[in-house]
């Protein structure tokens, strides 16, 4: 059995970005392939995972107490002023100097590598690169550096941070193999860091739904209400308003879980926003759903929310009602022109969205009325009516020809 010493920065629910989510998925997948993972995190968080062994860098038992705050997507500049990484009690902690933290982590890694048994070192992104190099130095084991984002992704026109670039490059050079999350990233690694192409492999990210998110939803459903977002994670669909409303809801109604089903270019931003607001533990990111999984998600939800910023029509609320789940839709959607038995709010009115979500969760009579009248209303709808209108229009045109 292969034993991997893995260096990470964060792990759900205490993650600020997709890195933590990817690590969770990857380690779970590895456990299914009979790989033993020893997962190292710089700081103690309250994790409930049984398929990997987790070591915390600041734990007494390790004797390497480092009050480290490591944040996956930070660049040096933004790190100083940022305070959004929360510990398990929701406290916000300031970090000191990020490079200093990276060095501390490397020191811990060296000690851990001396004590632990493993065959391979697997590290994620530049923040763990030094730790992995230190572990390699004491153990002589193979070292894989997994790149989820490069400094070129994090910094835009403003220019990259040279210190971080240096650490990334060193890490990639020191690694026996570099993993990239996409061909797009692989090309960047080869081009900007001068890493030989044969040393860079692509391992795409994935998402487990059937045996993961659905299962988790079922389990959470016992003690929680479920509020569902289902749609592409793009600006147009307003997922950020969903997350901000969730924050307000939780202030008044704690026993609720928010399920985000969908993928898109805002995915990491949304995951990160939830972390920033300290509510990651109340979110399930289920990825893109289809078929039976989508049905199940609708059915489990107590309310479906579509906070679209702009929506030419929006069929999902009708789908949701067909499954007996009431809906809250944005007034900026075409469907709000035809649907009466639902709740409506302006997409930007986060408080109004929250108010309505809480009302549905709190008042069964409201939920029932929305369900019953909503089903009645959508069941009266059918494509026959728009088809008839088309036929009328055909007739009108054909009569005109005569």
């Amino acid at each position: 059995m292969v034993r991997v010493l893995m260096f990470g920065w964060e792990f759900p629910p205490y993650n600020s970005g997709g890195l933590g989510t990817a690590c969770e998925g990857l380690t779970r997948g590895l456990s299914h392939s009979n790989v033993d993972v020893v997962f190292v995190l710089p700081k103690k968080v309250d994790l409930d995972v049984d398929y990997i062994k987790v070591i915390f860098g600041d734990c007494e038992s390790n004797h390497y107490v480092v009050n480290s705050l490591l944040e996956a997507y930070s660049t040096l500049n933004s790190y100083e002023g940022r305070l959004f990484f929360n510990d398990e009690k929701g406290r916000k902690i300031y970090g000191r100097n990020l490079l200093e933290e990276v060095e501390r982590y490397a020191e811990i890694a060296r000690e851990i590598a001396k004590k632990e048994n493993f065959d391979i070192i697997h590290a994620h992104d530049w923040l763990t690169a030094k730790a992995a190099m230190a572990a390699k130095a004491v153990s002589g084991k193979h070292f894989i550096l997994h790149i989820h984002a490069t400094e070129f992704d994090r910094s835009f026109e403003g220019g990259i941070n040279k210190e971080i670039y240096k650490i990334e490059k060193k890490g990639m050079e020191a690694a026996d193999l570099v993993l990239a999350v996409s061909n797009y990233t692989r090309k960047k690694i080869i081009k900007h860091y001068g890493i030989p192409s044969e040393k860079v492999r692509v391992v795409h990210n994935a998402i487990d739904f059937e045996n993961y998110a659905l299962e988790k939803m079922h389990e959470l459903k016992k003690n929680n209400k479920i509020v569902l977002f289902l749609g592409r994670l793009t600006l147009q669909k307003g997922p950020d308003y969903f997350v901000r409303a969730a924050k307000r809801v939780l202030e008044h109604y704690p026993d609720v879980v928010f399920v985000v089903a969908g993928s898109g270019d805002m995915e990491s931003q949304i995951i990160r926003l939830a972390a920033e607001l300290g509510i990651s533990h109340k979110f399930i990111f289920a990825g893109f759903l289809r078929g039976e999984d989508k049905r199940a998600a609708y059915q489990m939800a107590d309310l479906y929310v579509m906070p679209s910023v702009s929506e030419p029509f929006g069929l999902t609320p009708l789908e949701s009602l067909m499954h007996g789940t009431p809906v809250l839709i944005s007034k900026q959607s075409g469907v709000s022109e035809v649907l009466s038995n639902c709740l409506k709010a302006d997409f930007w009115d986060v408080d109004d969205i929250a108010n309505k979500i809480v009302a549905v969760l709190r008042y069964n009579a409201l939920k029932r009325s929305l369900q019953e009248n909503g089903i009645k209303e959508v069941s009266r709808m059918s494509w026959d009516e728009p088809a008839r209108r088309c036929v009328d229009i055909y007739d009108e045109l054909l009569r005109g020809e005569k």
Partner: protein
Amino acid sequence: MVSVCFYFQVHQPFRIRKYSIFDIGRTKDYFSDNSETDLNNKRIIEKVSQKCYLPANAVLLDALKNNPKFKVSFSFSGVVLEQFEKFAPQVLESFRKLVDTGRVEVLSETYHHSLAYLFSKGEFREQVKLHEEKIKDVFGVKPKVFRNTELIYQDSLAREVEALGYKGVLSEGPDFLLGWRSPNFVYRAPKTNGLKILLKNYRLSDDIAFRFSEKSWKEWPLDAAKFASWISAVNGCGQVVNLFMDYETFGEHQWEDTGIFEFLKHLPSEILKHPDNDFKTPSEAIESYEDVGEFSSPNFISWADVERDLSAWLGNDMQKAAIQRIYSLGHNVKKTNNPELIEKWRKLQTSDHFYYMCTKWFSDGDVHKYFNPYESPYEAFISYMNVLHDLELEVKEKLSHAPEISHF
């Protein structure tokens, strides 16, 4: 001889502002909304006063002066009188002038235009008493005839009203109870000492209240002479035609440009042109005519919708949940002995709050027919329940601070 008996209902609820979960525990004033929406009570009172109350009162006052035999009756909810005092004292003054003619009767109802009779007889009696005091205070008269909120009626109500000392009661006159009988007679309530009932002639009433401006109606346009001829035609087959309607019919439901004020202006003289017609107030009608038999309504009826039942206020789960919650609070609210809290609780009993939660027509997609200051029945329910949540917290707080009464 045919007597026309007019009863106009004057009522405006204290509408609840848009009240979210974030207002709970913070916003104590439930009824003041300063927005440009129809939730702004002051704005509504001012608007309806200009469109209806002031011009309609002027027309009636003239008609009373010009036709010594012309008579009408009004029922004012206590909550509308309160709002006149607050927002439009000149309207109250113009109503006083009408009452002072001596030919305008004022009826009795629950102060809060509530459904209390259905849920708490004790509360019902208190509200009837509060109303009596208010009417005495504002108009200096004591009502003799009772009409329940939205003409909600059942046999037991007649007994209750008789016990309270009234000599008559108003009710809807629906076909399914009348059968072959006519609403144009005075009836008596079963198992009473002869309490008399006046039944609404819903056809003739609704000709004015609903159909007046309906261009697809075969009688459109309706003028006073034509309507008077229908009244005259009752001679020989009826004694009293009870025309019961919302006063807001004049200028608010039927706008001025429909000709409704012209109609109202000429109606008294047109009706009186026929020597066998006259006008009577409800108590005069009850005194003048013997009852022709019993009118029994074992179930609750009302003047609302085609159903003429309670479904406009109690037809769905939201309405039932809301009304059960408000009345279940009653015991504790009264225990606080805090007049302000008790008054707030009572204002929340006004029937309109539950009417706004009605989903009967909403699912037909025709929201325009449906008068609702909220965007949907669901929004009405949310604000209402959030307000109750706040009230409940306040009641709990007051009770926890109240000194314990010891029983030595």
